[in-house]
Every structure is written in structure tokens, then in C-alpha cells.
């Protein structure tokens, strides 16, 4: 049957076709829909899970692959940093059943902290990587990746990018899928227990094997050469290939596409470059292929001029696009012009639209309560990764640091040690708490920090599309399970003061924070209130315009997208309002009413 799916859906369906038996991952844009798609299609016999983080996911999958089951792990590129400890070792140990690690890169970056390049990780770990250019291709290539993994008993990386992950296309898929069973874990400590000796031996084997994989890749059908014999060639990869193709570059010069950046298909590249005098590399993120070509040219004394990012022809940062690829191609070949565009140089100034916390988001109330409580005091607010990072925006302005998942807690601790007179706060989401927050709390308790931890518990992983986590009581096998109780976890760690509060009750929250600020040690507040996208209340607030004095305090203080001024009075957009009542609690003249409990 034909299915119109997102690139991530194509990856999911391709893995099911390949007989995958275990899929684990941690959400992260642009990778999250892979696991969600597996869940939507029949997948009997597949163990499916959102793990607490990428390291856990990779380890769960590795054990399955040791047992001969085909396993897939999904994450966004920075997730691979978290999973890099098991990955580096697993690269030495190897697998039995095919194991593919999907790490989705995000050039731009559009929804990420970094512009790192997973192809470099493949090189670093010395394992193969596949780099699809379209959803259709991702569907096929993920199957090739499983075959390659099994053939060489090595984990394999699969690196789509945002525009492949989030592009839709039709793929032809079977009516049903069969998960391939493994033959069970066979104990063999010489194979599965990593020791210096094993690593030494396997290191040598891996480098020998990679030469062979490079040869396989030289014959791989997705490493392609198009266009006629020419002295100029564009070498590209991933979605950049699609942009270059869109421009018809193969009519202007030779077009070489490398879909397997590591191990580099050296024989293929040498042949493809036969007769070529000038190369332009068009690729996103790092100049990986460009560097491989420079090495190749050095080793074989090829008389080729290679340009790309390293000589400043192509920008290092940001996404590639059809326009940029077209301009670069034309400049390189003197070729055909880009399509004519409407000139918009004279356009009126446009309003900027930075993303904001939704109307009714409980995070807004939590931040506002802490802000009010700390008015006039020296306080630092360490943020973390999630929707609540948006608490940085004006007028809340409540995020002083944001580094990586879980870092807010340990950074608040660090600030306390060097500046003990300030009140140090850490804000962490519930999903982030489970992912990498807990160890930080242990660290802070053990090392005697004075700080206040605010867990913003909205009962979901909101930023990445509302995935369940251990605190939600649901898992991806469709089961209702015991909730892991954040308050009990904190008590178990030894946090002496753990209080659960309703952030939508402004006065109580402000008093609570003031009180905690006077106490020693690690204190925790769990601000508990569900994300409005998972449980949207029916109630609404409304402004009584006869009472509104037009002071704009509601607008100035909390930045709720449902509030605007019309004709000198505050107005609430009923389509957006959820009746959280925060504005009603700050209106100095009591002009806003209609909160659910009134």
C-alpha cells in the first residue's frame, strides 16, 4: 500500500520492513516522529519505548542487538552526545543483530542547541554512516543500514537532517510487518565484556574492516555520478543533493553525491573525479566530504582545486537552500540563472515573531511567582531545555543560563559555590528531570549547596510534541504503569524540603518561594499543573471593560499571547484563553474575571 508519510515516518516504516524487533529513543526535534510512527502502525513483536534519555535507549538496544534482534535507536543530534559513552565502547564490542542509531541533524539550527554533524561522530567512533537525501530514500536506506550493520557486526549510524525528517512523500509499504526474532543472548565474555585487551584487538580489526566497508560503499547504488564528462564537478550529500538537483546542476557540470560519508568510498570518489580539475563541495554542517576529498587529493597527488567551506566559498553555518545551492552552482559553472523572483527589497518592516509560551501555560505562572518573590533580591535563575526555556523572553526574563539538558541544576549549584549570597534557582521540566536532572540533585545535596529547585511538572514532554515519560504513567507499549513520583525521588535523594504547589495560585506560590529562600540546603518545589495542550480547560477569563483602567499591567507583566489592548482597554482573545486566571490575579482593579473556580 502507498503511504504519504514524513521522512521520519519513512524511517519508521523502513525499519519495520527490515524486521526491527526493538525500537528505543528519547524525543528531540527533528527525530521524534520516528517512534510515534512505529506506534501508529501494526508492530506486533516489537518492543517500543521512550527511554529516559539517549544513553539508556542505546544501551537497551545494544543488548537486544547482542541477542540477534534488529534494534533501532532514535534521537536528535545532541542526544548522541549523551549516548556517546556507550556508543564509543559499543563500536569496539560490536553487535550481532543489526543495530541502527538514527541521529537527526538540524542545520540552521532550527530547533537545537548546536550545529554539530553526526558524520563526524561516525568517523570518531569508526562506524559507518548513511545520509539520505529524501524521505523515499530514507525508507530504502534504513533497510540497507540494517543489512550493513549485520554484515559487519557493527552499530551503524543513520543521519537524516531536518528537511528530510519533516518532508512528506509517498512510499510503497507492505500491508504488514514481521519482527525478526533473535536467537537469545549467548554468553561469551570474550565477546561482550569490554576490556583493554579486547579493545586493542578489535581496534585493529575495525580499521581493517572499514577499508572493506569503504569498498562496499564504492559499489553502493546511492553514491551516484550524474552529468557528462566535465572538468568541473559538484560533490554533495544529503538534502543538499536535492537542492543542487532542483537547480539542474547536472546539466552544467558533473554531479557527484556521497550518501555514505564514512567509511569514505574512496575508489568511487577517485573514479567519479576522473578528469575533473575543479570541485565545489556543497554540504551542510561541517566540511566533512570536502576534507575527505582534500585527503584523497593529497594521497593520490590529484591535480584538483577543491573549494567549499574551507576556502570560504560556502558558509559554515546555517542551512543550505535551493537558492544558495543554485547561486553557488551558477557562480561555479557560469551556468543558468535562478528563477525570477518578485523583488521584496522594499518590503515594509515586519513584526518579529519569536516563539512564546502558550496562553495559559503553567510555566508562565511558575516563573512569575518566583520573579515576584525575588523582587529586590539578588537571585540567579538557571534554566534548562524545554518549553520553559521560553521563560527567557520579555517580559518574564527569567532564564539566566541554558546549556544542555539537566545542566540548570548543577549550574545553580555552581553559582551558589562562588556567590553564596545570591539565591540560586534551577528550573527543570519533568521530562528533563528524569532524563538528566536526578544525578544533578544528588550532586547538589552531597556537596551541600543552598539552592531552590523548581520542577515544572506539566505531566508531559511538551516541547518535542507531548511524549509520555516515567512520571506520566503511560508507556509506548500502550500500558498504564506506576508513575515514578518526582516528590518521592527527591525525598529519596535526601532533599529535606519538598513541596508540591499549584503555580496558578499566585499568592500561595509567592509566599512559598519567599519562605524557602530563607532556608538552608537544597529545597524543591514541584510546580504541578498540566500542559494546556494535553488537558485544555473549558473556562475562560474576560475583561470587564467598565472596570479596566487601561494600565496595561497584565500585558507588561506576563506576556500572555491572549492579551491585547484594543481602544485603550485590555482584551482577552477567547480562542486562546484557557482561563488560567494569572492575569486576573495581577489586575490591580479586579477587572478580569471568569476563572474556573469563581
Amino acid at each position: 500500500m502507498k503511504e504519504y508519510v514524513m521522512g521520519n515516518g519513512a524511517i519508521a516504516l523502513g525499519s519495520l520492513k527490515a524486521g526491527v524487533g526493538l525500537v528505543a529513543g528519547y524525543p528531540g526535534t527533528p527525530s521524534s516522529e520516528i517512534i510515534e510512527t512505529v506506534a501508529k502502525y501494526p508492530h506486533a513483536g516489537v518492543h517500543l519505548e521512550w527511554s529516559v534519555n539517549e544513553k539508556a535507549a542505546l544501551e537497551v538496544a545494544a543488548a537486544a542487538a547482542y541477542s540477534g534482534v534488529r534494534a533501532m535507536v532514535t534521537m536528535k543530534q545532541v542526544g548522541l552526545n549523551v549516548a556517546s559513552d556507550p556508543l564509543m565502547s559499543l563500536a569496539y564490542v560490536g553487535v550481532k543483530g543489526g543495530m541502527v542509531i538514527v541521529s537527526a541533524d538540524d542545520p540552521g539550527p532550527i530547533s537545537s542547541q548546536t550545529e554539530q554533524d553526526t558524520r563526524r561522530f561516525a568517523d570518531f567512533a569508526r562506524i559507518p554512516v548513511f545520509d539520505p537525501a529524501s524521505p523515499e530514500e530514507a525508507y530504502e536506506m534504513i533497510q540497507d543500514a540494517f543489512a550493513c550493520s549485520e554484515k559487519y557486526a557493527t552499530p551503524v549510524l543513520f543521519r537524516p537532517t531536518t528537511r528530510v525528517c519533516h518532508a512528506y512523500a509517498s512510499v510503497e509499504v507492505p500491508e504488514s510487518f514481521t519482527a525478526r526474532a533473535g536467537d537469545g543472548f549467548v554468553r561469551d565474555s570474550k565477546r561482550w565484556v569490554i576490556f583493554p585487551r579486547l579493545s586493542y584487538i578489535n581496534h585493529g580489526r575495525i580499521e581493517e574492516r572499514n577499508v572493506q566497508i569503504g569498498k562496499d560503499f564504492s559499489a553502493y547504488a546511492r553514491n551516484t555520478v550524474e552529468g557528462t564528462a566535465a572538468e568541473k564537478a559538484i560533490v554533495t550529500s544529503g538534502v543538499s543533493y536535492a537542492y543542487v538537483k532542483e537547480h539542474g546542476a547536472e546539466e552544467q557540470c558533473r554531479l557527484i553525491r556521497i550518501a555514505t560519508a564514512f567509511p569514505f568510498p574512496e575508489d568511487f570518489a577517485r573514479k567519479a573525479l576522473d578528469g575533473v580539475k575543479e570541485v565545489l563541495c556543497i554540504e551542510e554542517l561541517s566540511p566533512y566530504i570536502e576534507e575527505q576529498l582534500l585527503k584523497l587529493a593529497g594521497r593520490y597527488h590529484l591535480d584538483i582545486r577543491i573549494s567549499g567551506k574551507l576556502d570560504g566559498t560556502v558558509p559554515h553555518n546555517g542551512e543550505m537552500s535551493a537558492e544558495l545551492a543554485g547561486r553557488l552552482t551558477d557562480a561555479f559553472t557560469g551556468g543558468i540563472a535562478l528563477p525570477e523572483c518578485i523583488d521584496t527589497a522594499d518590503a515594509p518592516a515586519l513584526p518579529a515573531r519569536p516563539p512564546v509560551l502558550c496562553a495559559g501555560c503553567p510555566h508562565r505562572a511558575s516563573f512569575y511567582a518566583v520573579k515576584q518573590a525575588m523582587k529586590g533580591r539578588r537571585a540567579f535563575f538557571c534554566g534548562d531545555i524545554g518549553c520553559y526555556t521560553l521563560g527567557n523572553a520579555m517580559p518574564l526574563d527569567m532564564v539566566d543560563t541554558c546549556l544542555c539538558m539537566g545542566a540548570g541544576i548543577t549550574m545553580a549549584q555552581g553559582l551558589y559555590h562562588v556567590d553564596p549570597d545570591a539565591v540560586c534557582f534551577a528550573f527543570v521540566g519533568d521530562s528533563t528531570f528524569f532524563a538528566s536532572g536526578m544525578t544533578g540533585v544528588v550532586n547538589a545535596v552531597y556537596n551541600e549547596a543552598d539552592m531552590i529547585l523548581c520542577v515544572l511538572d506539566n505531566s508531559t514532554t511538551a516541547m518535542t510534541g507531548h511524549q509520555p515519560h516515567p512520571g506520566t504513567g503511560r508507556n509506548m507499549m500502550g500500558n498504564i504503569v506506576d508513575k515514578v513520583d518526582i516528590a518521592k525521588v527527591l525525598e529519596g535523594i535526601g532533599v529535606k524540603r519538598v513541596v508540591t504547589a499549584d503555580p496558578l495560585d499566585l499568592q500561595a506560590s509567592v509566599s512559598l518561594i519567599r519562605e524557602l529562600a530563607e532556608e538552608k540546603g537544597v529545597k524543591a518545589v514541584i510546580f504541578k499543573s498540566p500542559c494546556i495542550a494535553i488537558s485544555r480547560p473549558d473556562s475562560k477569563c474576560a475583561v470587564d471593560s467598565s472596570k479596566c483602567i487601561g494600565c496595561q499591567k497584565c500585558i507588561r507583566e506576563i506576556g500572555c499571547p491572549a492579551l491585547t489592548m484594543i481602544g485603550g482597554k485590555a482584551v482577552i482573545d477567547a480562542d486562546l484563553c484557557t482561563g488560567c486566571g494569572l492575569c486576573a490575579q495581577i489586575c490591580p482593579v479586579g477587572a478580569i474575571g471568569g476563572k474556573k473556580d469563581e
Partner: protein
Amino acid sequence: MNKDILICGVGGQGTVLASKIIAAAAMEEGNAVHSAETIGMAQRGGSVTSHVRIGEGAYSPLIPHGSAELLLAFEPAEAVRNLSYLCPGGTAVVNTSVVAPAGSASYDGEPMRAYLEKKCRCIFVDSEEVCRPFGSVRFFNIIITGIAAGAGVLGISRETLTEQIRRRVKPKFVEENLKAFAAGYEIGSGASRQV
């Protein structure tokens, strides 16, 4: 058929449903279709776009600048922001009702309208007004699809689109949405007679 359609708006306006219905309908009529959506951070009130590419030979997941024959803009400033995607001679269906950037003052939509009018063939529509009979601006995505279809700039038949709305909208909202589509279609046919 070879056609690129760019849909733009602000996160939360329902652009994705319009894109899904148009893509599915174009496929139903035997076309190869590719599309791409803004997913992630920007969905929280930022600028969002859906790129629908109908026909063979579309390699780039995003529409190249100057290639879209049709721009469906859910917001006037977003129409201006994305105008460079439109090909010279293309049509823009534009909502004149502005969405203020969250947390800041609203802006005047009139200069946007005036600018667009100078630059391309426009069909303007006020979402507040056309959605009033339906009680919520949430119907605008279906109405604007109807307008484009009625104006004959979508290149997809009324029947195919109606069928896709039936299939893709939650059962209890189907009837209202079909009415919204029909209302949009009427506006579109009227507009195409005027231009």
C-alpha cells in the same frame, strides 16, 4: 500538473490541516506530491510555512524562491515575509486580519495590504468576518482552501477537496467544515469574477 503552493501563517493558526487536505486531494487526482512543514519551536507562536509541491521533478523539499504559483497567507505580515516564494504572475490569497506578535503591541496591517497589492495579484479576505457565522477563527484554514478552490487557482476539483475534508476532519466537525469550505468557495468564485 506541476504546481508549488506555499501556505504561511503563525503557529497555531491551523496551516498544517490546509496543507494536508490540499496534498491529499492533489494525490487523489493522480499527482505526485511532496510537502514540508515547520515543526518544532516555531509552532509556539512563530512564523510557520507549509510547502506543497505537486508534480514530478520536485527535488527540494522546500519550494525555491520565485516558484510558487499560489500563496495562501493566513496573516498579512506573513504574506509579505514569504512573498519571494511567489512567482511573478502568481496569486496570493491573503487574510487581512493581523495576528499581533505575542506579548507586544499589535501592528497596522494596512501597509502590508497596500504593499502586496502593488506586487502581485491578490485576493484579500478578512478572517474575522468570514469566520463569524462559524463562531471561531479555527475554521479559517478550511475557508481559505475553499477560496483558492473557488477562485480556480488551486487546480484541484471541489469534489476531491470535499471528500478529503470528510476523511481528514474529526467526524463531529465535518459538517461545519464542509459548510465553511462551501462558504469559502463562494467567496473565491466571486473574487475570481472581479479580478
